[in-house]
């Protein structure tokens, strides 16, 4: 009955409007001031898309509406609960988990459309149009890879699965084999096999397996790229389903999310000086480099919290370099307290953030924001790199490879060419680290053995607290 006053044109225009709202939601993120308004616009866009769809329902019987409200309430409650409960340090896992939801919904919607094509107006003379069938198959494929890939990423980030790359023998052969079977099954469906439902199921399962195989060989520290890529996939899955459903909001949103994820992946790859291809192929940090691990004999200067406090108190400018270790130790608040004490003494303190610090793009910024660090104090790599030469102290907390001078000087280093934060130029480098171990890239950091470096071997949080107490 509602559908009578919603003309096709009005419906399409409103979906377009919700697409525009989504564009504005992303646009808002150009500055923290406009970001919140942007988020509200995004919510409004979603509300518009939802309302329009409800008003166009074919079966708007009370029982059906109750069912829809029930589904949304269940999902809404779970989503709300998760969003309130998740710790800021766990944001990468959260994004991976949400991504998997998006991928799964794409798969399920494609299945729903496949099972009742008439409902979506996809039938021509009792058969699903070839173009729609191709779109559904693509939707299943991309959606399933997004789902299983994100689940693996989630497990690795949450520590439920070892984050080291898992390299199966012949993994490329297996992947290509699976992909070939998917292609054959798709072909059989398209030429009108009577077993189309079984084939559809086979394709779904194999796509899930493929997603798993693609992500398990990728190591923990390449996660920023993986998450961005999966984000991009979830967008493209939505866009493909948008083609099936002829829905403007989905097509526009899918394209936006797809390009957003792709750009983030690109930024992350550039920041690591790795090709997108090499990240996706995985296995980084796994090459044991034969038995040539030379036992390090150079002397290392190890200091205490009191030594560090003394050096910091006598500095006039300090640059903090946070990394994943800060997130693991949840040290952002203790760090902020330490910095506040230094600032009270008139010491200039700024933060330098490498694009791949942490496990996802912008991870460090969120943690520092949580600790109430003014964002004017936070600088990107290119903005601050030249300042290290004038700084008295570079305080490296939980970062390692992003400060390794080998990236500039050693052509044989696996991270050679990666842009690094040039902390070695500071007068003194204070390096907070749990032990003298190597970073994820499996390489030693020359910084440890420099004259002007003092290692502070402790948990990042405990060390910050001890230094605070000592100041």
């Amino acid at each position, binding site marked *: 009955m509602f559908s009578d006053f919603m003309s096709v044109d009005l419906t399409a225009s409103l979906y377009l409007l919700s697409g525009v709202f989504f564009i504005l939601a992303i646009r808002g993120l150009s500055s923290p001031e406009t970001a919140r308004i942007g988020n509200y616009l995004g919510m409004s866009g979603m509300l518009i898309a939802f309302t329009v769809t409800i008003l166009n329902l074919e079966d708007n019987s009370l029982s059906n509406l109750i069912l829809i409200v029930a589904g949304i309430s269940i999902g809404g409650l779970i989503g709300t609960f998760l969003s309130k409960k998740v710790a800021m340090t766990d944001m990468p896992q959260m994004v991976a988990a949400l991504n998997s939801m*998006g991928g799964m919904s794409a798969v399920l919607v494609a299945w729903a459309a496949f099972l009742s094509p008439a409902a979506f107006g996809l039938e021509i003379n009792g058969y699903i149009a070839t173009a729609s069938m191709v779109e559904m198959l693509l939707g299943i494929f991309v959606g399933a890879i997004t789902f299983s890939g994100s689940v693996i990423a989630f497990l690795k980030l949450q520590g439920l699965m070892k984050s080291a790359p898992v390299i199966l023998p012949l993994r490329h052969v297996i992947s290509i084999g699976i992909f070939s079977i998917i292609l054959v099954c798709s072909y059989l469906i398209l030429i009108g096999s009577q077993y189309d439902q079984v084939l559809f199921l086979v394709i779904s399962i194999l796509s899930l397996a493929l997603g798993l195989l693609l992500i398990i060989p990728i190591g923990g520290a390449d996660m920023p790229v993986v998450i961005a890529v999966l984000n991009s996939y979830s967008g493209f899955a939505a866009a493909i389903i948008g083609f099936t*459903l002829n829905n403007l909001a989905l097509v526009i949103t899918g394209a936006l999310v797809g390009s957003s994820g792709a750009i983030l992946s690109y930024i992350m790859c550039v920041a690591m000086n790795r090709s997108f291809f090499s990240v996706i192929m995985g296995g980084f940090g796994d090459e044991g480099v034969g038995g040539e691990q030379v036992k390090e004999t150079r002397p290392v200067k190890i200091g205490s919290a009191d030594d560090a406090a003394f050096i910091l108190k006598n500095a006039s400018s300090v640059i903090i370099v946070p990394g994943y270790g800060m997130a693991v130790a949840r040290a952002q608040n203790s760090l902020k307290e330490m910095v506040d004490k230094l600032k009270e003494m008139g010491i200039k303190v700024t933060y330098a953030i490498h694009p791949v610090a942490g496990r996802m793009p912008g991870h460090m910024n969120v943690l520092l924001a949580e600790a109430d660090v003014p964002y004017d104090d936070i600088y990107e790599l290119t903005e601050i790199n030249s300042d290290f030469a004038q700084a008295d102290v570079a305080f490296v907390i939980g970062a390692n490879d992003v400060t390794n001078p080998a990236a500039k000087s050693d052509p044989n280093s696996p991270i050679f060419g990666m842009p690094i934060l040039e902390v070695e130029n500071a007068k003194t480098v204070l390096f907070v680290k749990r032990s003298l171990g190597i970073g994820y890239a499996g390489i030693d950091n020359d910084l440890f053995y420099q004259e002007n470096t003092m290692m502070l071997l402790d948990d990042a949080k405990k060390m910050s607290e001890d230094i605070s107490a000592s100041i």
Partner: protein
Amino acid sequence: MDISPLVYYGSIFVLAIFVGYYVVWSVTPALHTPLMSVTNAISAVIIVGAIIAMGTESSGTAGTISKVVSFFALIFASINIFGGFLVTQRMLEMYKKKVKKDV
């Protein structure tokens, strides 16, 4: 002569990719995490597909399965929407506090 839906939506898709490209480059790196969570939330607009599937008179086994499947799609998409927008909001609130204090 009507334009085919594929070309029509294809054109919009291509243009939206360009819009996305320029809009995303304008996002400040400090907000890349909220960018990911909000794009997560909006990609769950796929919920419209789930609702459409729920809202059709089902017939036969396939119809019933289709309805069950779309019910689950509805739940997953809702988790994504609520989780995505609310966690984004939570993060952005943290950026807000400091604007007030420092400016």
